[in-house]
């Protein structure tokens, strides 16, 4: 049954393929979404030819016509993935890439109309089927585009987390952790792990957490900071929080965040001075000139 229902689409795709291909390419080239500055004509021709060939191969094998997630469509999906990826790299927008698939409708409809002019019901049916199929294929390219973007965002986020948590050794036994950017749970976790590992590695007894680069401190951020301080304390290291701007001091008090148990300082320099004193060290003017 499936192959007979398939017949109208298959017949228009299978019949005189080179003619269909040139018609389709002509439509694509005429469309306003065609980016001739980005894609060469022979490349377009090659992509169109391969897509048409793959489409026909699936339809000829009687593949499930509507469900493009079926295994029969595997090759077509891979081809579309390839095209979408290439075009995304070339700078096509997702809608321009999807139009590549959608534009096949026009020559197909023209042919269907020619073949089924006598039978409006069959024509409507065939057009509906063709349109659903091409829509799902076109939307698939958009999905791929989006997925590529999401992967990129996730990767960048990961890189940012790694970049933004350096732990520096200011002095023997004194660590500094300059925090830049907003502190969320995921970042706090990374910050905590890096700091604690560094405490183990260096045997440091004092860690200065500098929040000059943290734009806002709300209750959640404060809680994350206190957690880091508590974890460092469990490892036997004392924490000093520095770089508290006046606005942040005001917010912290207004929010009722309890920072009583933590040494806080306005600047990193003050915190460093305290740390040196706690370590039994002193910095003084040099006698030798």
């Amino acid at each position, binding site marked *: 049954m499936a192959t007979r229902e398939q017949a109208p689409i298959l017949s228009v795709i299978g019949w005189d393929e080179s003619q269909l291909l040139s018609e389709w390419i002509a439509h694509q080239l005429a469309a306003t979404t065609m980016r001739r500055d980005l894609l060469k004509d022979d490349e377009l021709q090659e992509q169109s030819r391969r897509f048409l060939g793959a489409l026909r191969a699936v339809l000829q094998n009687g593949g499930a016509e509507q469900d493009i997630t079926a295994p029969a469509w595997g090759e077509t999906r891979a081809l579309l993935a390839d095209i979408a990826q290439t075009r995304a790299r070339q700078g096509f927008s997702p809608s321009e890439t999807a139009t590549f698939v959608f534009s096949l409708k026009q020559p197909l409809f023209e042919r269907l109309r020619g073949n089924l002019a006598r039978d409006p019901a069959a024509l409507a049916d065939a057009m509906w089927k063709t349109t659903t199929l091409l829509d799902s294929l076109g939307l698939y390219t958009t999905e791929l585009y989006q997925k590529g973007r999401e992967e990129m965002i996730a990767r960048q986020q990961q890189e940012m987390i790694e970049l933004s948590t350096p732990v520096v050794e200011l002095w023997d036994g004194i660590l500094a952790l300059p925090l830049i950017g907003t502190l969320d749970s995921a970042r706090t*976790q990374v910050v*905590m*792990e890096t700091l*604690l*590992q560094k*405490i*183990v590695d260096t*045997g*440091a*007894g004092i860690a200065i957490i500098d929040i000059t680069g943290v734009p806002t401190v709300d209750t959640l951020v404060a809680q994350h900071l206190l*957690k880091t301080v*508590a*974890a*460092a*304390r*469990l*490892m*036997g*290291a004392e924490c000093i929080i520095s770089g508290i701007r006046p606005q942040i001091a005001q917010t912290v008090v207004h929010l009722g965040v309890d920072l009583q148990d933590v040494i806080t300082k306005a600047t990193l320099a003050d915190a460093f001075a305290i740390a040196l004193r706690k370590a039994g060290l002193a910095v003084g003017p040099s006698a030798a000139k």
Partner: protein
Amino acid sequence: MERIPILKMGDNLLVSIQVDMHDRLAMTLQDDLTARIAETRARGVLIDISALEIVDSFIGRMLGNIAAMARVLDARTVVVGMRPAVAITLVELGLSLPGVRTALNVEKGMELIGSRAAGPDGRHQA
């Protein structure tokens, strides 16, 4: 029955936890340690947990309890060698062990206890 050895070093007691703690073992340690503190009139207790990889809320609370009990018996507890992962777990569990003193390793822990024994509060000088 399995027991965790408690070593006496001068005025201090040394406990090194080398096996995974289960609840029964923790309770036994609590009993043994309080008995030993009373018996030896120890001033300091050093608990080395550097070999401990897994700490649950019960063990965390037990560490806090031991410290509190030792304080009642006039001995100060220092927990040393906590692993980063364990520290994070305890903080996430909401157990930051406020009454417990901590140090990175046994050496620093002994320093901490020693500095206190020679401290100005007189009470602990031998």
